[in-house]
């Protein structure tokens, strides 16, 4: 293999051979775009950073906390609150940032649509980390469409260096135009690490900009809002001029009449697959720099727009009367990659089409609930009781997979309670209807649904899987953990207390590992005549490691190979070949993988023959 070992300066210069140099640089670090945004925050004199964890955005606030990059930083209870906190800080004259995944912005849309009218004093940046390809999301919405909807200028970094540069530029732009700026990342940029050049000396810290009470400017009642709306349109015209002049929007010369326009990580694929073609990089993507694009289009025979998911840039260009090539190669759904652009190349230049490798004949390895997970027992009981179960967003969504097959629905954060109520009110025949959600999801948006259940009634049992952590996204603190992101102690929110306070009569707490108690309780609640809440308590096993007394073992002579334990879907329960004669015609018996077992004892509780016991 040939190496490209050359002088480091040369490589760095080649690496930064395109794009703008927004700041003088002196130091190099290997950073993901999420980490680069946090470094941008560190170097922008930010007062407040707020977020609710959500893949792929989570590491932004985690890194802000690690760097202590803002004066104050928090895990908010949800994205709406996170953004409202950031809006408040920006109205007060401080710089602020809120970060969320793409569906999180749905929750924060309400404040976004109006803060864009009201405007800000301190710079306000909203990070939307979209998830083309749905690596860890329930939908593939392209939040670039919201830029125009909310009238907020938008930057789309194509790598970690741009994520840093654009974060700093976003704060400046926000203050210049008194408008929130959207920084749109994607899973691929968020979770790709690259070389980032940073200044040795961060800029000096800044005080708050002066705050002057101005109700006409900040109280969005109709009389004021009508004026704000007109102002927002004038601002958009000024922003269009700014985008035309922005160095984040630039053209590269090339050979031939076929030219490309791309934004975000799609730019990297264009440069990879079509390195010699003329290309226009859109970095400041709303308002779209249509005049610059019109000039670029001059003399080109075909203008091919490569963008992930929705045709936002292509439609913007067509609306401006610029002719855009209509490709036949499907590019609209899923994540783009070099192979898909090679398929496009086959269409454009009759190059050989890429050949995908035949899928290997190997067993699948999907993600599963961990051995010893405190959610497993709840799902086991709900399945046994034949309940219709509206699920929610978290690790426990994995309970939908066989063999637990425990969920009927999953829509969005907090939807379980409303969905279950709706099913009941529609008259669904199912005798037993449950809503299942985690502690963090309950705090995020389950509480309001529960209040509605208490208020409007409905025979629904809400099970809160309370593992005292936001587990799926990597164990972030929440109001139930008793600790803030800043590392300070906080009052632990009491879920049963909240349920009682909103007016639920039947509220119980149960040990998530006690199947007998759980079954009796859930049966009573599901068959009762009123709303009920069951808080199933058990710490996340990834944090707690051993949840029970000790690892389990099996006794082959007692096992009758009935398979009851396997229906728990525990990765620690394995088939092992019998040493003795087959039993019930089966040559295998249940065994325990001691390296995975957490000692939760569920297997012992479901085994009809007492084949499981504590190992020494």
């Amino acid at each position, binding site marked *: 293999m040939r190496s490209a070992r050359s002088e*480091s300066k040369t490589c760095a210069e*080649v690496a930064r051979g395109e794009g703008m140099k927004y700041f003088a640089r002196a130091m190099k670090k290997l950073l993901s775009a999420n980490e680069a945004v946090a470094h941008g925050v560190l170097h922008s004199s930010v007062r407040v950073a707020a977020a609710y964890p959500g893949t792929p955005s989570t590491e932004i606030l985690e890194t802000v906390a690690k760097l202590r990059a803002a004066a104050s930083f928090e895990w908010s209870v949800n994205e709406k609150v996170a953004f409202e906190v950031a809006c408040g800080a920006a109205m007060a004259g401080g710089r602020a940032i809120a970060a969320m995944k793409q569906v999180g912005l749905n929750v924060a849309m309400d404040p976004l649509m109006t803060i864009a009218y009201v405007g800000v004093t301190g710079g306000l940046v909203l990070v939307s980390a979209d998830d083309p390809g749905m*690596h860890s999301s329930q939908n593939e919405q392209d939040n670039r469409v919201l830029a125009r909807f909310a009238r907020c200028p938008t930057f789309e970094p194509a790598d970690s260096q741009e994520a840093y540069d654009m974060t700093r530029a976003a704060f400046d732009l926000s203050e210049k135009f008194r408008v929130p700026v959207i920084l749109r990342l994607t899973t691929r940029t968020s979770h790709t690490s690259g070389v980032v050049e940073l200044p040795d000396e961060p800029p000096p810290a800044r005080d708050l900009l002066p705050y002057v009470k101005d109700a006409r400017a900040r109280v969005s009642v109709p009389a004021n809002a009508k004026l704000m709306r007109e102002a927002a349109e004038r601002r958009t015209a000024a922003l269009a001029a700014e985008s035309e002049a922005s160095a984040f929007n630039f053209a590269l010369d090339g050979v031939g009449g076929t030219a490309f326009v791309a934004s975000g990580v799609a730019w990297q694929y264009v440069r990879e697959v079509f390195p010699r073609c003329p290309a226009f990089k859109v970095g400041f993507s709303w308002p779209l720099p249509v005049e610059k694009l019109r000039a670029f289009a001059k003399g080109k025979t075909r203008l091919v727009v490569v963008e992930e998911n929705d045709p936002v840039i292509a439609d913007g260009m067509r609306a401006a009367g610029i002719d855009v090539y209509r490709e036949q190669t499907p590019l609209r759904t899923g994540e783009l990659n070099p192979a898909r652009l090679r398929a496009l190349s086959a269409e454009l230049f009759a190059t050989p089409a890429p050949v995908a*490798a035949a899928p290997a004949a190997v*067993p699948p390895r999907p993600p599963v609930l961990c051995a010893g997970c405190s959610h497993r027992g709840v799902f086991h009981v709900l399945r046994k009781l034949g309940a219709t179960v509206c699920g929610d967003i978290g690790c426990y969504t994995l309970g939908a997979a066989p063999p637990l097959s425990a969920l009927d629905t999953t829509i969005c954060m907090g939807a379980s309670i409303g969905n279950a109520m709706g099913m009941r009110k529609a008259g669904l025949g199912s005798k037993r209807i449950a809503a299942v959600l985690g502690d963090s999801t309950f705090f995020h948006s389950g509480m309001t649904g529960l209040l509605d259940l208490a208020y409007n009634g409905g025979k629904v049992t809400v099970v809160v899987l309370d593992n005292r952590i936001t587990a799926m996204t990597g164990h972030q603190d929440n109001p139930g953990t008793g600790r803030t992101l800043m590392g300070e102690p906080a009052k632990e929110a009491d879920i049963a207390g909240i349920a009682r306070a909103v007016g639920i009569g039947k509220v119980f707490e149960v040990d998530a590992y006690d199947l007998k108690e759980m079954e009796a309780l859930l049966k009573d609640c599901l068959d009762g005549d009123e709303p009920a809440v069951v808080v199933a308590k058990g710490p996340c096993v990834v944090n707690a490691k051993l949840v029970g007394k000790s690892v389990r073992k099996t006794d082959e002579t007692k096992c009758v190979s009935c398979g009851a334990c396997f229906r728990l879907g525990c990765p620690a329960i394995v088939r092992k070949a019998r040493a003795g004669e087959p039993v019930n015609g089966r040559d295998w018996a249940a065994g325990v993988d001691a390296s995975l077992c957490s000692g939760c004892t569920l297997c012992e509780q479901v085994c009809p023959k007492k084949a499981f016991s504590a190992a020494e």
Partner: protein
Amino acid sequence: MEKTNVNISLVGVGGQGILLVSHLVAAAAMREGFDVKKSEVHGMSQRGGSVTSQVRFGEKVFSPILCDGESDILVAFERTEALRHAGLVKPTGRVLVNDMDIVPVGVSMGSVPPAENLDARVAALPGVMRIAALPLALEAGNARCANVVLAGALASWLPMARESWEEAIRARLPEKLHAVNLKAFDLGFAAASGEAK
């Protein structure tokens, strides 16, 4: 330009320390002045699922991801994953396999059949080298260093100097783990170098 890039895919099972190794490759390459990109996917994949990370370095790297037939090197931390991702390797590429199995849950529960002829199929991978990382990790002093054993073996195929790897290890891990991991790295490097002779 693209010809000079080194393209590596690392695959395995959540919890095997794949992301640490891809970080070490990227950090060592950056130290030597290469442009680097390292991609990974978090989230659902952490719960015992199949995990992939990719590293590319060279004069200038554009795409952070590699598609089928684009990797010079595939590092598989587990044999079933080696077969699952074998399509990523160039026909002229090489495969480094950790000679161990983590049985997929579906197989251990009896709901899906195991991979057939696993051993023969692994042996037939292009330019395959097998390293049993666990015994070497135990020799170094900690079973959890198996991933760094593989990093050492991989290093024998790459242009970066040992100092760059050492610096990457020291910068990434807490001090009390430096000695054991450096030993694991050296054992992996030596095993792969011996194998190649």
